């Protein structure tokens, strides 16, 4: 009788999890071994054919490279900024709630709205960046989103701005759970603030850092909403990311088999990254 009760309690969550996570993942893996079917040409088993085709797709490699640069460019910066902001707003300062709110605001805004705002920041000549540049330095107009060398960094800046406030909340929560005696003891011992941060605060924040790192990594592969508004992946795929490419392949090219294959690649990539992060960093994390 007890079993039944337990299973009944589990059922709703289990149904949702299987229906919306496990089944689609398994179905995607299955689909990646078949060709895309049409009314004229039904789908057939092709083994690893889709994977071989993917390996020969230059856009896939370009997009994967973009995504790695995007991750490298956004994650460390956003995390460092988040930690600095958290330390700053954890102190006693005037209008503290207001400052915290200001840092958190970008997180609350939907990415589509953010991208629409930044589109006008980046617009040549009439955009905020160019107007400021001309006013302060007499700088010429830059085609921020129309230059393949500038477009990816430009989207990275926006994402760092958007993400840092979110990660700050986690650091802030962690900082507030640190016992105040540690700081008092350090003061009595005459430790400098930098020394205290390096030897006490930072190590104690490691569990949070791991958590944030995992989330930031996932987000850097998951956040592509801005591309729909800002660049559509252009010019010539210079700002395209893996998930956006999956969307294009699935819904613009209607090539469901190739999209399933790309999705499997993305899932494997994320799984490997997550496992690696846990294994490598776990050793350096002090859980209390």
């Amino acid at each position, binding site marked *: 009788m007890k079993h039944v009760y337990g299973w009944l309690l589990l059922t709703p969550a289990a149904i949702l999890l299987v229906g919306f996570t496990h089944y689609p993942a398994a179905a995607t893996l299955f689909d990646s071994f078949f060709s895309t079917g*049409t*009314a*004229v040409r039904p789908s057939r088993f092709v083994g690893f054919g889709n994977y071989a085709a993917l390996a020969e797709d230059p*856009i896939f490699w370009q997009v994967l490279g973009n995504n790695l640069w995007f991750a490298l460019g956004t994650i460390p910066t956003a995390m460092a900024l988040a930690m600095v902001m958290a330390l700053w707003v954890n102190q006693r300062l005037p209008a503290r709630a207001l400052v915290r709110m200001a840092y958190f605001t970008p997180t609350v805004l939907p990415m589509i709205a953010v991208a629409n705002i930044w*589109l*006008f920041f980046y*617009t*040549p*000549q*009439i*955009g905020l960046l160019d107007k400021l540049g*001309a006013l302060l330095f*007499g*700088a*010429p*107009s830059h*085609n921020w*989103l*129309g*230059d*393949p060398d500038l477009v990816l960094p430009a989207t990275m800046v926006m994402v760092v701005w958007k993400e840092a406030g979110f990660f700050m909340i986690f650091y802030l929560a962690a900082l507030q759970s640190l016992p105040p005696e540690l700081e008092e003891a350090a003061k009595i011992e005459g430790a400098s603030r930098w020394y205290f941060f390096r030897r006490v605060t930072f190590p104690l924040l490691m569990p949070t850092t791991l958590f944030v790192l995992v989330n930031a990594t996932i987000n850097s592969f998951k956040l592509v909403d801005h591309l729909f*508004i800002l*660049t*559509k992946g*252009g*010019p*010539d*795929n*210079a700002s395209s990311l893996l998930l956006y490419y999956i969307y*294009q392949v699935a*819904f*613009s*090219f*209607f*090539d469901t088999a190739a999209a399933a294959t790309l999705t499997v690649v993305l899932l494997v990539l994320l799984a490997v990254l997550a496992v690696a992060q846990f294994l490598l960093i776990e050793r350096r994390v002090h859980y209390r």
Partner: protein
Amino acid sequence: MKSVAGLIAAVLLAAAAPARADVELTFYYPIAVGGPLTKVIDGYARQFEKEHPGIKVNPIYAGNYDDARIKALAALKAGQSAPLSVLYSIDLYELIEQDVILPWDDVATSAADKAWLKVFYPALMMNGIYKGKVYGIPFQRSTIVLYWNKDAFKEAGLDPEKPPANWNEMAQMAAKLVKKDARGNVERWGVMVPSTGYPYWMFQAFARQNGHDLMNPEGNRTNYAHPDVIAALQYWRDLGAKHKVMPQGTVEWGTLRQAFTEGKTAMMWHTTGNLTAVKDTAKFPFGVAMLPASRQRGSPTGGGNFYLFKKTTPEERKAALAFVKWLTAPERAADWSMATGYVATRPDAYETPKLKAYAAEFPQAVVARDQFKFATPELSTFQTGRVRKLLDDAIQASLTGQKTPAAALKAAQQEADRLLKPYR
């Protein structure tokens, strides 16, 4: 999220349908829920219902063209009936390959109906006909025109009533229109042609003007690498790289209208769909002209057509025909064109008193119509998404200087040949 909202809207609409309606006509319509056009469409639907008791019309607003196509196809797979939809005119081959649409010739069998299939501008039918049968009835259709700022022309010592008629003139006039500040930074560009969003569409105009279409009517062959087509891309690139009258790199589609109305470019190529918005926001007199010619004039059409789905009952097909005929009647087509800036789809709509009066007061509104004789269908082939993106990437790679036009277009043509070989 949008699809969830659409689904909820669909369920609510279905639940709210009164039992007396014999035929229910659900159709997907590619605009965002709550946009200003939804009111116009809702108004048409209510009026049609009043005049045709027994038919209930349910428009479902489904976002952009891609969203609408995805939702309409998903609904079909799920067995829901949506006898009718407005979808992208260039989705034709995709829908035929999926085997989900029916030619209008199959339902328009009476003499009057057959005549109706021929009332539209031929230029607008080119994207709707496959193997001699009409699959797409033009509804919200646009084309590219040249907008010019008359004040800027005056300031540059040019005749403000005379837009460039050919490529040379455009480059020369644009050079005079470029304005620099004391530091040598450009304050106003001569001309801008957008190259994000729909680069292939703009490029079709250049290619056509230089004498060539980019695909064949069967949709299984592209013509990206012809020397004249390469020369067309070279001209586009030269506007920025050689003549320095357009910014280097790509020009954003979404903010170009603001750049024009803020006076940051003296001329722009843009869709007629922007006409009403430019009219409302420009603080200077502006003109609208046909695009300039190289060997000939040319501009592609674009926009949405009415498609009839295969999975329908005979009653639904009849109701769909009645509704589309009613919506495309001259009076309505005129009304629709004035409300939106889309072109009226048939010549007799321009003969209606209200559109005549509107055109007399705002002659910019009829330029698109006059350009129809030089129109070419929008790029559409089998595997259309991929084949189009190959061209988009090639254009952007040349405009940003990463590849030469010849190298970029030849590579795109080679890849397009590989994709289209099975359809020949």
